């Protein structure tokens, strides 16, 4: 446990806000700078900050390493899956307009948010996985996948 009280208290206060900001960057990324990639980095950094202050064991308890592995793959799966859904709805691959049965611009909104959701998931998981892989090197020797 980190002996610095100020660091602990401040990060305890900040981590929820970091996460909130991460989700804001994702969902507002449709209209403003941001999106899944930057949101994923922000969320991943939130977990890294937690691990730095409260230790690797606490972080591993909060976000188990296998989450990271599943998350990486799930994110890619969601992105490609949106493409396949639009195929089944009668459009071309990744044609968001086809996601709306009435073929309005609503489909574009839906598509971009869903795709960015996948991106965010993958990026968060990759950031955490890289951090775990490096942070856990000494103790177990081989934790490239947790």
């Amino acid at each position: 446990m980190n002996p610095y009280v100020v660091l602990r208290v401040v990060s305890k206060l900040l981590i929820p806000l970091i996460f909130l900001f991460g989700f804001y960057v994702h969902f507002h990324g449709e209209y403003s700078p941001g999106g899944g990639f930057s949101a994923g980095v922000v969320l991943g950094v939130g977990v890294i900050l937690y691990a730095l202050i409260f230790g690797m064991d606490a972080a591993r308890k909060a976000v188990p390493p296998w989450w990271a592995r599943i998350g990486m793959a799930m994110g890619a799966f969601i992105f490609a899956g949106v493409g396949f859904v639009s195929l089944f709805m009668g459009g071309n691959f990744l044609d968001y307009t086809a996601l709306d049965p009435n073929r309005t611009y609503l489909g574009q909104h839906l598509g971009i948010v869903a795709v960015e959701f996948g991106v965010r998931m993958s990026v968060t998981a990759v950031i955490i996985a890289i951090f775990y892989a490096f942070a856990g090197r000494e103790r177990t020797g081989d934790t490239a996948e947790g």
Partner: protein
Amino acid sequence: MEPQFLPAAIAAHAPALLVMIPLILSAPAAMITSGRAAWVMALLGVGAALVLAAEIFLATRAEGAVLSYAMGGWEPPFGIEFRIDALNAALLLLLGSTGFLALLFAGPSVADEISRQKQSLFYSAFLICFAGLAGVASTGDAFNLFVFLEISSIATYAIIAMGWSNDRQALTASFNYLVMGTIGATFFVIGAGFIYMSTGTLNMADMGRAIAEMNGNRAVEVGFAFILVGIGLKAALFPLHQWLPNAYAYAPNFVTTFLATTATKIAFYVIIRFRYDVFSIQTGFVTNAMLWVITPLAIAGMLVASTQALFQNNVRRLFAYSSVAQVGYMMLGLGMATSLGLSAGMLHLTNHAMMKGALFMALGAFALSYGIRRIADFKGLGQVMPMTSAAFTIGALSLVGVPFTVGFISKFYLIQAALDAGWWWAVAAILISSVIAVFYVYRILVAIWVTPPNEARKASPKRVPLAIAVPLAILAGANLVFGVWAEPIVDMARAAADAAIAAGVNP
């Protein structure tokens, strides 16, 4: 497009599905932990890609047929376009078929070489690599091509590094490739940037049109030079081949088999595409670059890399150097700037995939049975593993260019093209390089067939698993069958060359 044998609904989306099915299957493959299930998933993905490639190949057989697929419904040239004509259809068919055969071989080979908990991740990375290569071969958008190139490259670095459980040198080999490959990709993207700056478009067909309208733009010429160097690195064009020998020698056997039959081929395709379709009108600069830069390097590669192969003791390293020499043959065909030369290069590309596929797969079978990699350890293999040794021998003879093998066919057409262009010195280089190939192949064949085996090995003959025997037999058989009945491959190469040239003249 006209559906050939698949339902119309699938055939219409074949170009996208070919890339996306392997890509999406890589995600579940990474999530499961069973190596065997991941292998089945990879077989499904690559098998589907093979079927779709066959469909696309048949659909583009008609003269001048081009499949264009607008990704996301955004029409080219603004959106990303997948554009497939006879040239990339041939590449996709080659990628699908050799990928599938190599993957069959992967079952027993990967189970032997890679630790159990890493196998599913390995197959996941392989699927990403495959999807990336298929994407490079299908896309008609220069920046998208760069993205797919990076997708396949990054996955390739990972799967090469997985050879570390056999030999730690795989890690440095992979790291060297990572550094070189990243430099290559950077050069490509700088080149694409120069062209984008001058033409304002990223669609390759549109670029060709815009370049045709300006004559002699220096920025475009610089862009071409950057792209040539960047992709030349990926294609292992001499002297940019330094990453290749170690990467091939220390990667898992399956990875070497797959990369040797596909990765450098796809890079070679990219050069053809840019040379003929994007820059066709800039004839002066581009033709000179081909004549004065690529051709001398091709010939130097044929001679130097073949000579280097003579001095190798590690058999996979030896054939890696031979691969560099073979890239020289293909580049020589490209350098001739004639239709005959280009089709000879394409022909050698296909045939080289067959011979190196058979050779590396046989080496994989030897490694699986006895864990051997050095020529000195190959003594008497002909007596303990006669069928595998026979397949290896067919591949080796094909590499030399013995009549009734595909190697002879491609050298015959290459020499014919060289004579047609009046390049007698190129003919001399081809013959000298072939003679050197005789020497390095001779060393191995003598060890296999003439020297007697040691007693321990005689006492324990090994059976090759069916998953290796079948694809190996198919590849070795293909070397002989297409060596005698060459029309299908020659026609395919000619159609590919014609499509490349036609797309440039009439963009």
